[in-house]
């Protein structure tokens, strides 16, 4: 079985969000880039599956759409333990653009992992679009995944509970928190081996963007917090009813 893990390159989650002067683009100055948190968990789960005794996983490939500066993120994925990386050499535009690029390299994989969303533009769309473009099944809100021969057993979150579903490969698993406990820290040996692993660069296919950002705004600042003393718990609850009218 061959696994593909989609890897997003996103600003560190502690980044203070700022935009350029005309507010048309994210200001990336001084930003530290990381593997999108859900993608990192997906990769960790893929590694666990590969390392399990009697595993049928032959290889783990990671892929992204991005320029050369995003290769550090792919190499971190290789350091964590992926066998091969593929980079589609283009600026990631809208979700459809990215999905359409990935569709050209995603054939032939049995299990494709995508994170539930990217922590920057919160698109939550690439995994589902890719599955549709490939004409294969997708399962979303995945918090657990086991490989049993040719079929995949998935635990997914549904409104008000969870559900175990079986699905035959190929499939796109769109994962969220819980898929792996914590992202794996690359070992020294993995870091030193990362550069000797294959990183294939692929040219993009022509794709029209369907959606674009015109501009950005920061949310309006909150009014000052109204403070009560440690003894005024009741007064606060009353204010929620009389003043804020939320009780």
């Amino acid at each position, binding site marked *: 079985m061959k696994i593909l893990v989609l890897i997003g390159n996103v600003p560190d989650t502690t980044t203070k969000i700022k935009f350029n002067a005309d507010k048309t683009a994210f200001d990336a100055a001084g930003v530290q880039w990381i593997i999108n948190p859900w993608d990192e968990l997906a990769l960790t789960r893929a590694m666990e599956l590969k390392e399990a005794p009697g595993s049928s996983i032959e290889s783990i490939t990671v892929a992204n759409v991005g320029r050369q500066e995003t290769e550090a993120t792919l*190499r971190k994925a290789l350091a964590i333990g992926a066998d091969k990386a593929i980079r589609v050499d283009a600026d990631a535009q809208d979700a459809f653009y990215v999905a359409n690029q990935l569709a050209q390299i995603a054939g032939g994989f049995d299990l494709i992992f995508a994170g539930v969303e990217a922590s920057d533009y919160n698109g939550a769309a690439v995994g589902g679009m890719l599955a549709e473009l490939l004409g294969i099944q997708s399962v979303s809100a995945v918090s657990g995944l086991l490989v049993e021969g040719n079929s995949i057993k998935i635990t997914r979150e549904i409104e008000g509970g969870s559900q175990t579903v079986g699905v035959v490969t190929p499939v796109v698993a769109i994962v969220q928190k819980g898929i792996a406990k*914590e992202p794996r*820290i690359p*070992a*020294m040996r993995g870091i*030193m081996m*990362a550069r000797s692993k294959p990183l294939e660069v692929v040219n993009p296919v022509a794709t029209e963007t369907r959606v674009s950002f015109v501009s950005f705004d920061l949310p309006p600042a909150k009014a000052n917090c109204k403070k009560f003393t440690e003894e005024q718990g009741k007064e606060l609850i009353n204010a929620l009813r009389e003043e804020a009218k939320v009780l």
Partner: protein
Amino acid sequence: MNFEFSEEQLMIQQAARDYAQRELIKDVIQRDTTATFPTHHIKALAELGFMGMMVNPAWDGGGLDTVSYVLAMEELSKVDASVSVVVSVNNSLVCYGLDKYASASQKEKYLKPLASGKKIGAFLLSEPEAGSDATSQRTTAEDKGDYYLVNGTKNWITNASSASTYILIAQTDPSKKHKGITAFIVDKDSPGISLGPHEDKMGMRSSDTHSVMFNDVKVPKENRIGEEGFGFTFAMKVLEGGRIGIASQALGLASGALERATAYAKERKAFGTVIANHQAIAFKLADMAVKVENARNLCLKAAWLKDQGKPYGIASAMAKQYAADIAMEVTTEAVQIHGGYGYVREYHVERMMREAKLTQIYEGTSEVQKIIISRDLVK
């Protein structure tokens, strides 16, 4: 000149940071309070490859450069200097000495498990009456044909009870003074070895420190490192590199305390504004930042010289003396910036201040480093 780190170096730094900020932070206060050895952390760090970072991969090490080691030591020490001293002793005293000077069969038997972190080591040099002055060794190793018979006491031994392998420095020919000193590999389980009580230290409380007593301990001949009389040179060479480890530890304590103090100063309000806006605090932070940056540059310079195969003994002495001294200053200021909160355990900086003190003392006091630096100037 190039001040850029390689992608691998940055990844190693991040890996150490992730482990420290995610795992070490969880129980660092508790282990300090109860003086508990970080067994599970050392096992995890071994699996990540932090216990034999610079050892040749042929002997199960990481084959990394010293710059990477400095970066990793700084990150681990920002959170937990008790863990980082275990890492430092194993890497730069034990593994380095064996990698550089031990025979192939010794490496096969002893270095492999140490470099992979399956076992840890200790370095036995200090004695009750020979601390910083390593020339006057009282521990003796008497040639008995097939083996040496060791007698004496070693003091302040980091990892003494948790280590499996000791690197021992002892006198084989007292008449030759320091030219009669020899280095050995000793199994800790050897009959005749006993440990003194666990030292109840001011800081670094989660690392285990004991004195080690040798009473007619038989050490096989094949466990001698190099020739008889090579021990003093061996110890001095090993300590040159060891200083980079402790300098980086001191650097981590200082930069960790600076990070905490800065974050606190940006949050804590007094007189209607965050205290970072008060010049008294802002200037403290600026002074601390300059010291930290100087210490970092000294550490990296010493590491770079070592990686280039150039002499680095003076550079590592400068790094150790300066980083240790500013670690003491910066952690003390960090406590001051935190005010009352800085004096309680929950806020970490009081522990860092206690830990910083030891970096001025062990592996050569700041005064000894100044002797090394000044002797080189006036020679």
